[in-house]
């Protein structure tokens, strides 16, 4: 199998602090990779780096080509999308418009043709995504008027609706109750069935251990373990760094 995302020695430095210190990881096609680590381990920085929001050194290859120097929207156009820990939805336009914006790769020509009403809209893809994530009844709402669970879902939907090959999910379960988390886990497995790879960052160990195919553990910007959920559960280094004396947060 070939990796859809391949990072080698990815390093992000803020002044003297290295938020990511030489992280090398692979996400394979059709895989759900969990990325975990204690607070401040560099998980969100990793996502920010890969999606073009902070400068980095090392190498990031997506779908066989380097992402070096690409601005965020170009990276998104290649099929790499993300969600945000703090959601960052377009709060005052409808859910459908949220998805339409993300689904469109707007070129000047296309903008003009669309303006004069002669370009095919992305409605089909939007409808499909809405159906998969069972959110047809909220299409006309504005995200500001939705519950946290639905807002998270809109974030995920927005990341999936573009012709996405890989989606990076930043803490999708934060702020959700147990029922909603379970429901989210199901949706994530569904996403994999559609041939989209997922990199999942979350604090909810239950969720990550449960839905991931493989898990990558980082601490202080460095990789400390890679393996299947059961291997990670028994890994001494991980227990030491992450689970601590309590033996898990569930």
């Amino acid at each position, binding site marked *: 199998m070939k990796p859809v995302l391949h990072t080698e020695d990815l390093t992000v430095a803020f002044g003297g602090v290295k938020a990511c210190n030489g992280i090398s990881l692979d996400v394979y096609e059709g895989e759900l990779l969990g990325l975990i680590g204690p607070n401040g381990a560099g998980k969100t920085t990793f996502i920010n780096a890969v999606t073009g929001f902070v400068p980095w050194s090392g190498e990031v290859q997506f779908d066989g080509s380097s992402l070096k120097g690409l601005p965020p929207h170009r990276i998104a156009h290649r099929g790499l999308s993300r969600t945000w820990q703090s959601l960052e939805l*377009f709060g*005052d336009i409808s859910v459908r418009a949220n998805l339409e914006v993300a689904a469109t790769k707007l070129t000047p020509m*296309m903008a003009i043709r669309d303006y004069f009403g002669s370009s095919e809209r992305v409605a089909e893809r939007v409808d499909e995504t809405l159906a998969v994530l069972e959110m047809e009844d909220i299409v006309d*709402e504005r995200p500001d*008027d939705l519950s946290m669970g639905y807002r998270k879902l809109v974030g995920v939907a927005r990341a999936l609706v573009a012709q996405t090959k890989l989606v990076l999910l930043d803490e999708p379960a934060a702020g959700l109750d147990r029922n909603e988390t*379970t*429901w989210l886990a199901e949706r994530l497995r569904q996403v994999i069935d559609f041939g989209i790879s997922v990199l999942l960052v979350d604090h909810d160990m239950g969720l990550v*251990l449960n839905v991931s195919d493989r898990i990558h553990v980082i601490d202080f910007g460095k990789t400390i373990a890679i393996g299947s959920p059961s291997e990670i559960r028994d890994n001494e280094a991980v227990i030491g760094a992450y689970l601590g004396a309590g033996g898990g947060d569930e």
Partner: protein
Amino acid sequence: METYLQFMLLGLGSGVIFAGLALGLVLTYRASGVVNFAHGAIAMYSTYIFSSLVDDGQYPIPPLPNLLSMIEAVLGWFGIQVDLPDIPPFVQLGDPWSWPMALIGALATAGLLGFLFHYLVFRPLRYQPPLSKVVASVGLMLMLQAAIVVRFSNRPRNVAGLLPQDGVDVLGTTVPADRFYLLAAILVATALLYLVFQRTKFGIKTRAAAENEQFATLLGISADRIAAVNWILAGILAGLVGILAAPITGLNPLNMTLFIIPALGAALVARFQSFWIAVWVGLAIGAGQSLLQIMEIRLPWIPDINLSQGLPLVVIAVAMMARGQVLPSRGAIERGRLPMALPTRIRPRLMTFWILFAAAILIWAPFVWRQATINTLIGAVLALSLIVVTGFSGHISLAQLSLAGIAAFMLSSLATDAGWPFPLAPIFAALVATGFGIVIGVPALRVRGASLAIITLAAGVAIEVFLFKSDGWFAGDSTRHVADPSLFGIEFGPNSPFFFGDGKVPSPAFGLFVLFMFTLAFVAVIRLRQSMLGEQMLALRANERAAAAAGVNVTSIKLAAFGIASFLAGIGGTLTAYKFGTFNMASFGVLGSLSVFAFSYLGGIATVSGSLYAGSLFPESIGTLAFEKLFFPLGRYEAYLAGLFLIVTTLVQPEGIDVFDRRERRRIGWGFVLLWRKATGNPDRTKPDWVERIYPEPKHKKGMRPSPPATVDAATTHEDGGS
């Protein structure tokens, strides 16, 4: 060489005002996160108070809406003439005051203004997005400026000098002593402020609140009270420098109000943080401007293009380009939302009705109404331009009328001087405005919110002084002829013959032409709101970061918004030029830009139909004409009321008249339907479609938001996940 030194020292006079205002800007920003565009207006206002007290012993009463004159007007409809008391414009407080008393009176006013700004305007707005705060402070600026124009007229006023003027010899040149007293005063003030902020508990509390308002509040610091004290201090400081320096800089309602621009430049370089940097840069701008003035005269190789006036813009642009988003964030709580961008649909039957109605007025109504309709429609085109750039893409532009002026000037050059035929000349003129607009939009790639308002305001002033007023480019004449438009031998300018009517200017033919242009622009912007481009602009407005991550090319969309808006402004400018038959730079000044912004915001900045309300608020438009016919002539009160209502709008109805009107139409219309059904015994409670179309109510209020369905059987698998 001595002359240059002398001029630099002379320039310290205005430099001290810039520095004092910049200090106040830093104070209020640190205290409450507000960039106060009306700070120069506080200085101007208090200086007028001082001057009025010293010269005449009179204290001007700010113009207040007098309900009694409303009653007079209403009684007048029934032929009853009554003379109810008016609010007097001044209170006579004995003989002319001595200067120390007058100074105290004026500074008390300045402090009170600072306090009222905070207490009545910015405190209620503290959780609102930056856009609302900028709009409110622009409203205050317009209002104070207009209040003084109403009371004292536009004429420059001589202010009694308090500081000794005798010459002092410095390095072989003579400079009046007041410059040095002023310099000493501002440096002492800065040192005091610096010590207070470093050493006293109050200063530390202010700094804590500036660092993170939320945490400071949790620590029991009343961010509110601290802000109030800082606002009062800033107000007094502004009043003081205004009064002391007015004999040097001269005083009229506009000049000191616009000293805010160099002051903003100085505050920007200081990142709205450092008192010392703000003061030194303010002084340097003053000295530099004076130096450039003499260099323009003395040195033949320096073009005579008011370079000195452009210095603040250069400082602002360099500060922004070098630093990007310079305003430090405050960890403030923000829970307000931007004006809702409700879509406007194209409803062919309704639109045809209104177009025919407007055409009927243009053809048959008396010429005052014809003129008012034309003014309304041109105003609406200008408002559409702001709806695109501010309403859709979320960028404040305070230079739209200046852009319109560029198009108007180009039209006079192309159509009249170069003889270009009709559609080509205005289109090309609007395209030139588009080019300038895109250049103004470039800073928007790095900054937004208040910073962008600052740079566009400075750009508007720069266009005025560089392009309209200087001899360099636009040949310096303030009025130029614009020929009537004609196509295929049919003329449709304001002086063109029309087969029907009273033959007065403006001709109905011109009215129909304006109506046609407005309709085109209106439909074009409705279409933009529905198109993918429009959706991307709204996404950008909501969240720039997320828009980039979702594949929106932020750079292109921003420049597109500025470009489209500038083209519309350009069209508005060409229509204005045709209307007057001349290019007159007086109709495209900076205050005009601010008023256009105010009217557009009032009408409804984020909805296309808001442009018509905006148009009806312009001077001599249908709305104002109707008001004047019904009640009393507005005259100089118009700008004052515009500022006042702008502030009220941001406070109580941030979405503007249009959304307010839609919501009320929905409420009242639906109420009538229910009443009718009750009367006819119809138990049906379903809402007809039009109810939602007029104004879509949020379906879920807080506390009853929909949640995703919970799947019970999957919960077991989840339980396994724990260790």
